[in-house]
């Protein structure tokens, strides 16, 4: 009888099930991106809402492990193992494979496969080209687990190069004013800097202390960002006409006011919504996101060929509705602790900034 059970195909919820701590894989006894300390964790990427410290053991890409060590210290977990993208790691009778997600450096989707059932937990992802990380690779699967941070048809991100052009145009228009660009310290900040370089801007870029560690890591990983100078060792009064990258929380802080007549910019997908930009006192909204927009969520779901879609966090309702109209089975997982509708990251940044 035991034998018969083992060889039977899993029901999806037997292979992956949402638990208060996160997505849980019972046959391997392991969680994906758990929001509280667990014995064994698979981590998709280094953002603090997905990568938390205090787990017994962590399996993640080399870059993600390094980012976690940078943020939490070497003792962030008792044991760690590197997942090489593309390679399969078997735990119990479950095969796990990490595949690039295009979100930030080291970010990965996790392919969970056992007894002929394949589920892809995509973590956070985007499809737009990013010079600072490997691009998203669609994986054919039975069930695709997707985020829906920008899961509403009002979110259509324009090409990032055009947004960076807006920033550089403003720098040309106001050569006496500092341009303070709020950008999440892991991923967005480095991507914005790389895009600024691609646009041909060659002046030094100035960065807030909370962005230094991760930026240094990106550079060590071979991502060219040109000349970077820490604000901490500079006279802020002399930074008129310069571009300064800081965490979003710092842009509204006293910290930002010490620059000459600053122009406040913010690089985020949320900048699509005017009210959001105004709430944050942003004068120069830059719609640059590390998440898939509405069109890319749909395109990705179709590319995976999955017949069933699970939506982890964000605007799940709209995406689930769309799946229904497209003839796909879909359900929200109501996972809590991720993104908190995208507002968790500034909190993380505030914590970083305090360091």
């Amino acid at each position, binding site marked *: 009888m035991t034998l018969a059970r083992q060889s039977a195909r899993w029901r999806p919820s037997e292979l992956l099930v949402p638990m208060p701590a996160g997505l849980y894989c019972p046959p391997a006894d392991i969680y994906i991106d758990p929001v509280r300390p667990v014995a064994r964790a698979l981590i998709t990427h280094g953002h603090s809402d997905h990568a938390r410290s205090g787990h017994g053991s962590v399996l993640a890409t080399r870059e993600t492990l390094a980012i976690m060590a940078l943020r939490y210290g070497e003792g962030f977990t008792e044991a760690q193992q590197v997942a090489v993208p593309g390679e399969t790691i078997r735990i119990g009778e479950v095969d796990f494979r990490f595949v690039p997600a295009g979100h930030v450096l080291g970010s990965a989707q996790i392919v969970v496969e056992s007894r002929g059932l394949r589920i892809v937990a995509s973590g956070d992802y985007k499809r737009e080209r990013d010079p600072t990380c490997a691009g998203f690779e669609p994986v054919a699967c039975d069930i695709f687990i997707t985020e829906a941070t920008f899961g*509403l048809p*009002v979110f259509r991100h*324009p090409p990032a190069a055009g947004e960076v052009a807006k920033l550089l145009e403003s720098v040309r228009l106001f050569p006496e004013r500092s341009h303070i660009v709020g950008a999440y310290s892991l991923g967005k900040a480095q991507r914005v800097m790389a895009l600024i370089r691609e646009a041909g801007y060659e002046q030094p870029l100035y960065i807030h202390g909370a962005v230094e560690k991760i930026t240094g890591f990106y550079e060590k990983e071979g991502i060219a960002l040109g000349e970077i100078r820490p604000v901490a060792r500079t006279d802020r009064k002399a930074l008129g006409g310069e571009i300064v990258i800081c965490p979003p929380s710092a842009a509204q802080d006293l910290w930002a006011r010490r620059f000459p007549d600053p122009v406040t910019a913010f690089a985020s997908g949320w900048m699509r*919504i005017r*009210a959001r930009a105004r*709430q944050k006192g942003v004068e120069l909204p830059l719609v640059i996101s590390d998440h898939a927009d509405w069109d890319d969520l749909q395109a990705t779901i179709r590319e995976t060929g999955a017949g069933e879609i699970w939506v982890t966090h964000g605007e799940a309702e709209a995406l689930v*509705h*769309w799946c229904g109209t497209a003839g796909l089975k879909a359900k929200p997982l109501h996972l809590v602790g991720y993104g908190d509708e995208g507002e968790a990251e500034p909190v993380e940044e505030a914590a970083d900034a305090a360091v």
Partner: protein
Amino acid sequence: MNRFAWLLDRLAYEPRRNAKLALIADYLRTTPDPDRGLALAAMTGGLAFPNAKPGLIRALIAERTDPVLFALSYDYVGDLSETVALMWPARHGANQVPHLPDVVDGLRNAGKTDLPRLVSSWLDALDETGRWALLKLITGSLRIGVSARLAKTAAASLGGVSADEVEHVWHGLEPPYVALFAWLEGRGPRPEATDPAPFRPVMLSHPVEEGDFARMEPAAFQAEWKWDGIRVQAVSGTRPDGTRVTRLFSRTGEDIAASFPDVVEALTLDGALDGELLVRRDETVQSFNTLQQRLNRKSVTAKMLVEYPAHIRAYDLLIDGEEDLRDLPLSERRLRLEGFVAKLASPIVDLSPPIAFANWDELAAARADPAAAGAGSDAEAVEGCMIKRLESPYLPGRPKGHWWKWKREARLVDCVLMYAQRGHGKRSSFYSDFTFGVWRTGEEGADELVPVGKAYFGFTDEELVELDRYVRKHTLNRFGPVREVRHEAETGLVFEVAFEGLQRSTRHKSGLAMRFPRISRIRWDKPPREADRIEALENLLPASG
């Protein structure tokens, strides 16, 4: 159209008044006629497109999007124009980007059947910002933080004149204001102010602060009741052909005369009165709630005129016949006002009586008990005192050091948060509209909360973020944009709610309606069981109801 859209977009993100002025002035200076005049008209509310309504936009987007996705998006964005601008399926290069004069001309003149095709062809051609600006133009509420006054101030700066000078000639002008720009740029004569009954900018007061009294000599001031009605400027004038023009302006210059034919009929003398519009019945001024029955009515029935007779309680005279009194001191204007009202001899226009006081303590006593201090049975409609310097000229705007308002103390009550709704506009995506309740004994004898009001201000932006987080963490149920928040004896959030007055109401479950409720403090510390009971509110009801 793109340049106009660019201007609106920049203004929407620019918080500083001076920078807004510079942006508008720069646009007006560098944009040719008639585009700039149409933009000025858009910013001053001077464009009306009777056939172009929000319903048209809803219909167009409904043809192109899934209704559920539209509803979710609108709920999230909180602004119809912006939602449609963002959701509109792009058709790049579909048409030529339209010019502003063509758009205005089309919106004005196209018939109901042609308009949808015209508007959708423009939307296809424009980018997100252009679509947003076009839709703002159609819906008529720009919401870019620019008042008509600010736009006129920017226009005035082209000619180095004051906004009041522009205001003075404004009513004789029509979009696209070619003559106005010609005058401002020194290429043409000053336009004639031909309107016999124009609006004059209203003089406003400052709230009085504790320390102000020490610097104010009581003998230099006049005090009046602050009436809880609607501030109006009642203007009457004679056209060259001898016919009479009478207008009733709200304090922002909107003409509401159509709702008040009884008042218009009473104003038979050339002049401009400043006063309070009230409903007065049986020799007694009625509450604001009663006055509301007369507001925003397109047609006024004879029955309403009898049941809710309008009344003007006058406190200032700006124009007497042909004579402009605004430079005279208040003491002289008051004498002229008394003469004017006596000559008018209308039962529905009377004087707002001065309050007798020798020192500020006496005025404080009068404010605390208006009924005993001369307001008599009208006391229910008094919401405090006005303190006006006897020497004050009548100045536009809110000049410092002339007029103060001294409102009655707000009533305070501790309520429990019950429901929260996402805000609109600036507040979209935040739960910012709060419905709160107080305890009462339910039908089965157990205590229950009954909603008594709704408030969406009184807290800081930082508090809003915390409230929003609280709502999300304590949600019991969701009903579209509304969330039911946990409200039990031990779990829930208490607000100290301030309000100005209380009325009986059949529309609310509690039988009560609050006037001007706002969150005065968030009592994170207080358990819901310690919030107030309905009896505490019922005790505050006016005896007569």
